[in-house]
C-alpha cells in the first residue's frame, strides 16, 4: 500500500497541482488509462469545492488531498469549512441552469456536484471524523 498526501493553501492556483499529482498517482496505482480524464476532473472538482468553501468562510487552513492504492485507488479531499456536509443536492436540470435568477456561484456549485456524481461511481461526501469539515471520498478500480 502506498499513500501520497498533499496539502495546499486554499488558493485556486494550487488546484491544478492537485489534479496533476492525483492523476500521476492514479496511473502509478494502475487505474485504467481511459478513466484518467475522469479522475483528473473529479479531483479538480473536489479541490475546487474545498478551496471555494475555505475562501467563503475565511478558513486559512490547508486543503488536504490523500491518495492511497490499497486494493483500489481511493482519494480523500478534506476541507475544514463549518458547513453541513451533504451531497443531497439535486442535479440542476436544463431549465434551472438557464434560469436568469440563478447566480454563477450557485450554478457552478450545482454543476460541480453533477460532474462529481456523474464521473465517480463510488463517491461519498460526509463530515470529517474529528473537528469541522467535509471529506469527499472517491474510489476507482485498479488493474493489477
Amino acid at each position: 500500500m502506498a499513500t501520497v498526501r498533499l496539502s495546499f493553501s486554499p488558493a485556486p492556483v494550487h488546484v491544478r497541482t492537485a489534479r496533476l499529482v492525483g492523476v500521476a498517482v492514479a496511473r502509478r496505482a494502475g487505474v485504467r488509462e481511459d478513466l484518467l480524464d475522469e479522475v483528473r476532473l473529479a479531483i479538480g472538482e473536489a479541490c475546487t469545492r474545498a478551496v471555494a468553501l475555505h475562501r467563503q468562510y475565511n478558513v486559512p487552513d490547508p486543503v488536504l488531498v490523500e491518495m492511497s492504492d490499497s486494493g483500489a485507488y481511493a482519494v480523500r479531499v478534506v476541507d475544514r469549512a463549518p458547513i453541513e456536509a451533504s451531497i443531497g443536492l439535486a442535479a440542476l436540470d436544463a431549465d434551472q441552469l438557464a434560469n436568469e435568477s440563478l447566480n454563477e456561484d450557485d450554478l457552478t456549485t450545482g454543476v460541480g456536484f453533477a460532474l462529481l456524481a456523474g464521473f465517480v461511481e463510488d463517491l461519498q461526501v460526509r463530515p470529517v471524523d474529528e473537528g469541522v469539515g467535509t471529506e469527499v471520498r472517491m474510489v476507482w478500480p485498479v488493474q493489477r
Partner: protein
Amino acid sequence: MELSLATRAVGKHTVLEVGGEVDVYTAPRLRERLLELVDGGARHVVVDLGRVDFLDSTGLGVLVGALKRLRAAGGSFALVCGKEPLLKIFRITALDQVFPLHPTVDAAIGADPSGAGA
C-alpha cells in the same frame, strides 16, 4: 497548459478561440474577456473550445454567464466543441440542452438565425 484566448471577427460574429486549461484559476480571465467583448458591442459570440484540454465547473459557469448576458442583450451565444471528453461533460451536467453546441465554427455561424447574412 496555460489558458490561451484569441479573438477574430467573422462577419457579424465574434469568434473567441480558447485553448489550454479552463479551471478555477484561469476561468476569471475567460470571464473578463467575454465581458470585454460584450461591453465592446459584440452581440453574436461563438466560443471555440477546440483547443481546450481541460474544462471544469468554474469554466462552465463562466460560459453560462456569457450566454445569459448575450441573450438578455438580444444577442446570441454558441459553442464549438467536437471532442468527446468535453461533450460528455456537457451531457452529464445537462448543459448540452442549454448551449447551442456545434462541431465547427462554420456550423455554429450557419446555424445562428439571428446573425445570418454574415
